[in-house]
Structure formats: C-alpha cells, structure tokens
C-alpha cells in the first residue's frame, strides 16, 4: 500500500469507504422512502413493492458494511475534487438536453434551439472545461464540428433531430 493511504492509527482508516458508503446509504434511504408505500406480497404473488424493497434493502446492507469497513480496513485517501471540469462538462450536457428540442421545466419553458446552435454552444462550454482552452481555436473548431454533425446526422443519416430553432424554420 502506498503513502496515499488513510491514517493507520486514526479512527477512520479508509476515508473513501466512509464517504462512499454513507452517500449510498443515504441514497438507499431516499429510495426506501419512495417505495415504502407500494403494495407488498399478496399471498404467493409479488406486489409492485416487493422486489424494489428487496433490492434497496440489499443496497442498504452492503453500503452499511462498506461504511463500517472504513473503521477496520486501511484504504486510499480521498482524491482532490476539482470543480472546473465537472462544472463545464455538466453545463454543456445540461445545455444540450434543455435546448435541443426545448424543455418544459414547469416554471419556465426553455426554447428549442436545434442542433446548429445547441451543438455549437455545447462544444464551446465543454471546451472551457480544460485549463488550456483557447477562445479563437475553440470557436473555429466548434463551428467545424457542429457543421459536421448537422451534415452527418441530419442530412446524411436523416435523423429526426431538430437543426434550427423553430423561429428560423
């Protein structure tokens, strides 16, 4: 084991297992709450809630074991959490999802922009995830890639993907 491992003498010997185990335990809790009201076994027939509750219970048990193992077994330390890459990449994907055809968020309706605009912005946002992002190069490249995608998916393959925003069509 390398020196990046958790503290052998401290209480928490494997911080990764503790954080991961607890997070999944919470997730299991939320899921259990969500399926708690579903009908269970009725005679020999399974109800809609039987199997989900079984699966969630298995998840909870293993997550608990994992959490407890953090105090007994040595394991790797937590890794540094960068924010830049996850932020921009998630922003890019979310933007694409919301604007490709438009999306009704309940409070606001996001307008559809189509692949030509949506794809371009997605590539730009994703590009910004990297430290050595260059604006000029990025713009040119985003333009090229978007054109390529429109030609490939919409023109050549005839995919039913919106290309332009409705107000331009």
């Amino acid at each position: 084991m390398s020196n990046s491992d958790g503290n052998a003498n401290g209480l928490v010997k494997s911080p990764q297992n503790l954080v991961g185990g607890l997070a999944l335990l919470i997730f299991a809790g939320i899921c259990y709450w969500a399926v708690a009201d579903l009908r269970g076994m009725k005679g020999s027939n399974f109800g809609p809630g039987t199997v989900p509750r079984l699966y969630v219970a298995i998840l909870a048990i293993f997550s608990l074991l994992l959490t407890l193992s953090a105090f007994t077994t040595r394991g790797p330390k937590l890794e540094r959490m960068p924010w830049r890459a996850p932020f921009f990449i998630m922003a890019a994907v979310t933007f694409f999802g919301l604007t490709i055809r438009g999306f009704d968020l309940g409070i606001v309706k996001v307008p559809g922009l189509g692949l030509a605009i949506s794809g371009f912005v997605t590539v730009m946002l994703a590009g910004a995830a990297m430290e050595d992002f260059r604006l000029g190069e990025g713009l040119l490249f985003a333009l090229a890639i978007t054109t390529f995608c429109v030609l490939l998916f919409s023109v050549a393959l005839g995919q039913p993907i919106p290309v332009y925003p409705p107000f331009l069509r």
Partner: protein
Amino acid sequence: MDFLTQLAGGFAVVFKLVPIDILPGAGTLIIPLPVNILLCLIGTLIGTLIGVLPGVGPIATIAMLLPITYKLDPTGALIMLAGIYYGAQYGGSTTAILVNMPGEATSVVTTLDGHQMAKQGRGGRALAIAAIGSFIAGSFATLLIAALAKPLSAWALQFWQADYVSLMIMGLVFAVALARGSVLKALVMISLGLVLASVGTDVDSVDTRLTFGFVELADGIEFAALAMGAVGFAEILRNVENPEKRDVVQGKVTGLFPTAEDLRQSAGPIARGTIVGSVLGILPGNGAVLGPFASYTIEKRLAKDPSRFGHGAIEGVAGPESANNAGAQTSFIPMLTLGIPPNAVMAIMIGAMTIHGIVPGPQIIEKQPQLFWGMIASMWVGNLMLLIINLPLIGLWVRLLKVPYRLLFPAILLFCCIGVYSVANQPFDVLLTGVFGLAGYLLLKHGFEPAPMLIAFVLGKLLEENLRQAMTMSRGTWNVFYERPLSLSFLIIAAVLLILTFLPAIRKKREEAFAE
C-alpha cells in the same frame, strides 16, 4: 457437422445481392449490390474510427452509432452493429498501442507491451500482430459459436424460470468476483444497479416505482443514458482532469509486416490466448474482461525470460489481443442462446435487437435462422475486413490521435449527446446521462467501478420478471430453487465462488492479478 451447413447458409445471407435503386425515385438505375457486406464494411470502419478516439470504448461507440441502424432491416442492422462492435474493440487496441490509453478494460493489458513496442519503433508490427491474432481468435470463436449455438439453445429451452433466476444470481456473483478493486464495493455497485433496474412502471399493477414524479422515467431508465453517463462521461471527466497522461507515439509508424521471427514467437501465445479468451468469454458476469489478464499471466509464466515483459515483448501483445477478441465474440453465446447478456456491451446489443423487434433467447435460432446464421457469418467477415482494411489506415488513426485532447473531447461529448438523444428522441435522456455522468465520476473517484452496476442493471429486470413468475408457479414456496437440480447447481457454484472471493488468500491473489 450440421452447423457448418447452416453457417454456409449464413454466408449466403451475408453475400446476398439486393437490387438497390441508386437514384431514388427515378427507378431507372437499379443495381444489385451486396448490401449486407457493405453494411459490415461501413460498420467496421466507423466503429474503428470512433473506437480509436481515446476514452471511447465499445459501449459508447455502439450507443452512439445505434441510431444509424434504425432504418435498416433487422439482419442488416445486426450485421452492421456487430461490425461496429469489432471495429470499436480493434480501435481500442490501436489506441492502447499508440497512445498508452486503453479505450476500455479489456485493452489495459495491451498498453503494457504494445506501447513499449511502439516507443521502440515497432508499433506497426505490434498493430499487425494484434490484428492477425484477433483474426485467428475471431475465426475460432465464430466456429465455436456456430457449434455451440444449437445444443445450448436446446438445453436452454428446458430451463424453468427458477433456473433462470439462479443462473442470473450466478452471473451477478461472477461479476463481483471478476470486478476490479474491492469486493465489497463491487457488491455495493451490483445492488445499486439492481435498484436502478427497478425504476419504472410495475408490469402487473400500473404503479410507478422510484420515478420521483418524472413521467419520462415511467418506462424505466434508458440503458444508453446510464451506460454513456457512468462509463463515457465519467471517463471524459477523468481524462480532462489528467490530460498529461496522453503519450502519442511520435514519428511515422512503419514496418507493418511482422517478421518471420515475430510470427514464430506469437504463434503459441495466439493459440493459447484464443482458447483462454473463448472459454472465459462464455462465462456470465463479464468473463471476457478476464481473458487478456489471464493470457498475459500465462505468457509471462511460460516465457524463458519473463523480464522482457513490460519492455515490448511481442507475446504480451499477441496473447492478450487474441484473448480479447475471442472473448468479445464468445460473449455472444449466452446472449444469443439464453437471452442473458454477460456484459454491458451485450446488454446494449440486446437493446439494439429489441429496437429492431428481435427478442434474443433460445427461440431465436429456430424462428429466425436467416438472421441468426447471417449474423454469425458476418462476424467472421467483419474480422477479415478488420485485418485487411485497418492496416493501411493506421497512418490515419495516428493523425487522428495527434489531435489534442482539448479539441477531441468536446466533439466526443457532442457525439454522445446526439447519440443519447437519438435513441428515443428524448431530451430528458440527455439530462439523465449528465446526472449519471457526474454520479459515475464521483463513484469512480471513490474507487467504485461502473462495470458491475451495468451488468446488474441489465439483469435486474430479467431477474425480477423470472423471480415473480417462478414464485407464482411454485405457489409462493422457495423450494423450487433448491429442488430443481439445475437451479441448485447454479446456486451452489454462486455460493462457492462468493465464499472463495472473500477468502483472504484468494483475495490477495485476485488483487495481484488485477495489479499486473
């Protein structure tokens, strides 16, 4: 040798000429074209093209290219998909050799000696041996599938639901045992996959489960969204974080023809790798991933001078690459004969088949022999094409790999978004992919591998379905699971394997095997 006749029939399907109207609408220029073989060619080519991109493995490639097969007839679509799969697999090996960056788990081993060979200027020979080994392994595996398909399907038709349940439980245990890293974490990921599988509308009642009020989740989680997010996006995030890892071989890759000495040294490893890979590929629960590791270990043990390994030993490329391809192909066996996907790639193939209205399982070989044998024959043709077309194209792949990652990954990301959107024309799936990408990245950062989760997700639905039917038929008693000899044997194997995985001695061996 009944299966050889049927295989010949399959070749007839692959080489079939279809009259195609070259100028649609005009009706004047109708030329008979071998459509299926062209689809196979296009599939292998674009499969390789996408698969070469660093960090894009076969799962992401198939999910991305799936929509382009929608308009084809089922046979053509499957032939193309199989081509895409081998292409992606081969592209991943190319990247492993030239960039030291495995596209997916099965080409990790290839980076060890393959990249060293490339650094020493023997990259062309490494790629050639990988292609030759893959072709030999692929040919053998094709024959194996053809020979085993009928007897296995016949056997599977006698399965009860309880047997299927036990078989799937055994598959899940295999997935845990064969996963990299901590056993406990693999168990957690398996259960997480099962929970995600139960999202959606219940089959008997109309109750929705775990949809948290999202109408879009009523049909369950789209597999492409989960796979592309947890594997593809998570991988992109990791690569963006450590960009310095990329190490493209500089200079021209020359000498594409292996020397007689290379061939002599590789013959044994290719033969052994083919057999090891074929056997492991049939195992449920991602056995194929173990093939290259096992082959590498065997070659290192057998070598007169094991210290050459890790410094460009050609045996370290020939063996694992053959095992890799053999396993990739024999993993079709449980999928086609039992309807149970042994790994995530086969799961996505099942998804693709379902879209084309084909339900994989023991009945497929009788009901759709044209499709079944055509697909198997096309596997061999696809492997031959890879061997012929890819070697001249290596220069192109090298140039593609020299494109800086900062330009490459936004394009990959956009392809993935379009791919996920196109599966069902559903923007919600894109957002879902983002959520799974972030979650997958966080899990990966804490040492949780996504592979077992994907297998469990796929098996989860089948498991519930069969479990419910089994319980209804047995009138609510669990006896059926241990009274059926077949079911009992599956459960015993699963239990023994699980105990073995937890034994300290085996656990240590397992860690060593994966560390290599």
